[in-house]
């Protein structure tokens, strides 16, 4: 974090009439980093990206790219490339011409770009050759060389998407901005293109801001994930830290599929939080009388008729309502003794005995996450998350 950030938002705010789309967002993105911006629909992801691109004005705050304040600079002068959700290719131009547009606009002067007489201007031939070279090599790397003479109307969604990527890449911009570039593709192609974009990022090493509402996409592609909610950044961290060590209950709930399980935990007058009868945290005197929430990931519990809690574990009773077989494993749907419905990942071999639907669910205490009524993560006074937090810091 010692190198200066490639992109930096300082208290950026944006208002649309009465709605505050962004509320003082500050964020640094390092040179070469792949940052995923994730959050529910309407949380302001696109707005933040478009403000960074210069397509939208901001009401407050500053933005810098590569160390230069670009707040007042128009989009064309910010030297960023954008991949739009609907690709926004020029329908009257072939793939080759589409990809060449950013180079034509930047490398040719107004005279050389003139219709009819432009091709006769001095120096035009040399620029043409260079542009053709660049477009050709980018097309090769995206495996779309065969499509170069087609117009967007004659291409499939996936092919258009590649051409849009190509148009962004040819220019070697200071940053790539992508707004849900995969959401118009079918599921199989989406997973495939996902890894291609990651490969591409690795090869080019260009700073990338990637907007998605798909948490799986964010976790699998990004170096860091920024989780947004209602115009605010809830947490910015590595995918692992976001998943294992969320700062806020909204982050915990948004990330992970199936969703994190939440159960209520009372805090007694002794400042001790209990899940059922078992003590799971202490030193919570401040929260005496309030109900905290305990979160645990679906894969973190063991269930079985014979399971007994060991050292540092807690057991609660769990009654199975449905087993959803997924092939490699299964998801056990059921309810806790305290009434909350939960989902648990169980192994492929898990077969519930015919006579009993009630099991012991054993959870390691260190993998429980405690949330205050405000939704903030509680790490103080507990022995729970300490080791994880420490790992995340060093990781």
């Amino acid at each position, binding site marked *: 974090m010692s190198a200066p950030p490639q992109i930096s938002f300082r208290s950026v705010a944006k208002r649309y009439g009465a709605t505050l789309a962004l509320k003082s967002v500050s964020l640094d993105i390092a040179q070469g980093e792949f940052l995923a911006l994730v959050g529910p629909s309407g949380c302001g992801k696109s707005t933040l990206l478009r403000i960074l*691109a*210069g*397509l939208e004005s901001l009401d407050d705050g500053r933005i810098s790219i590569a160390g230069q304040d670009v707040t007042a600079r*128009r*989009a*064309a*002068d910010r030297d*960023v*490339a*954008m991949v*739009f959700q*609907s690709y*926004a*290719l*020029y*329908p*009257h131009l072939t793939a080759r011409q589409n990809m060449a*547009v*950013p180079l034509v*606009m*930047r490398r040719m002067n*107004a005279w050389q*770009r003139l*219709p009819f007489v432009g091709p006769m201007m001095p120096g035009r031939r040399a620029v043409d050759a260079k542009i053709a070279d660049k477009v050709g090599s980018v097309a090769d790397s995206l495996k779309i060389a065969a499509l170069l003479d087609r*117009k*967007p*109307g*004659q291409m499939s969604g996936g092919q258009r998407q590649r051409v849009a990527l190509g*148009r962004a890449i040819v220019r070697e911009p200071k940053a790539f901005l992508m707004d849900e570039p995969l959401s118009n593709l079918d599921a199989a192609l989406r997973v495939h293109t996902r890894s291609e974009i990651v490969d591409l990022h690795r090869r080019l090493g260009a700073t990338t801001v990637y907007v998605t509402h798909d948490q799986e996409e964010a976790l699998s592609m990004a170096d860091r994930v920024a989780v947004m909610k209602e115009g605010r950044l809830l947490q910015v961290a590595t995918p692992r830290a976001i998943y294992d060590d969320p700062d806020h209950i909204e982050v915990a709930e948004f990330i992970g599929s199936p969703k994190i399980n939440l159960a209520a935990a009372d805090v007694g007058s002794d400042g001790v939080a209990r899940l059922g009868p078992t003590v799971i945290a202490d030193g919570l005197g401040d929260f005496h009388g309030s109900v905290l929430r305990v979160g645990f990931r679906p894969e973190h519990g063991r269930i079985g008729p014979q399971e007994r809690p060991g050292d540092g574990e807690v057991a609660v009773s769990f009654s199975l309502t449905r087993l959803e077989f997924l092939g490699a494993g299964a998801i056990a749907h059921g309810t806790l003794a305290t009434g909350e419905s939960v989902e648990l990942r169980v192994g492929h071999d898990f077969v519930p005995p015919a006579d009993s639907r009630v099991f012991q669910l054993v959870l390691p205490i260190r993998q429980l996450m405690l949330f205050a009524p405000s939704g903030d993560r509680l790490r103080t006074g507990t022995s729970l998350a300490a080791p994880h937090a420490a790992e995340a810091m060093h990781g």
Partner: protein
Amino acid sequence: MAEAGAATSRARTSEVRVRQEEYAGWRLSAPVMLLVIVLLIAPTIAVFGLSLTDAELGSSEWHFIGVSNYSDLAGDRTFRISIWNTARFVLLVAPASVALGLGLALLIESSVELKGFFRSAFFLPVVSLTVAMASVWQYLMHPTIGPINQMFRLVGLPAINWLSSSDWVLTGLAVIGIWQATGFAMVLFLAGLTAIDPQLYQAAEIDGAKSPLDRFRLVTWPMLGPTTLFVTTVTMINALKVFETVYTLTEGGPAKASEVLLWTIFKQGFTYLQIGSASAMAVVFIVVLLVLVVLQTRVLDRRVHYS
């Protein structure tokens, strides 16, 4: 056995349903088809039939004379002048009103505040009665008291006999024609502009198209292709049909300088009562219109739609 029976009866019911749908389709479109036949197709056939006769208005006797009306037209000096004038009128009015309409649409689209006002202001000529407006133009273009000539004099230009000199009359009529057609073109262009995906402009900005001219060439003009083609065709057809202003202001004169097709047909039919040869002229007129429409739908359309 039972299964086969069920299958045939199902096939029969579906056949019946198809026939019923067909019947319903015919029934629903019958009124419109009837109107089209009575108002468009039958008169056209009648005109074509009449063009092969020596029919005269008021005379009950007429004979089939083959194509001799058409061969007469080839040698008719008035008709040749009329075609030449109409062509010049179309070439004056269509390009100018398309260009002006596009320019105005771009201007209006770029200024949010005045949009509503301008939209109605420039659309006024389209909805107003041509005959009524013609007298306003007669005043505006009056050689001595007309404001246009007064302005000309103010800047030191010679006054022009807009509607009564054979050198200028077609230009004068073209000015009125342009004034009428521009609002129409503008409204169509405005609709075309709002249909352009704003993301294309954003992509163009990010790609470095900085000047308005760059954006126009990269996005606006190509995306307006279908609109421009349509506007051009319709404007040309409307210009071909120029009649009201000629009828009220110039009556084809002076010295046939504003003799245009519809006026010639009108005079031939209703002044000289030569229905047969007027019909032949009308057929020529319809053929010209058809050629324009076919040109639009068959040939050019393919170039401006990109999918």
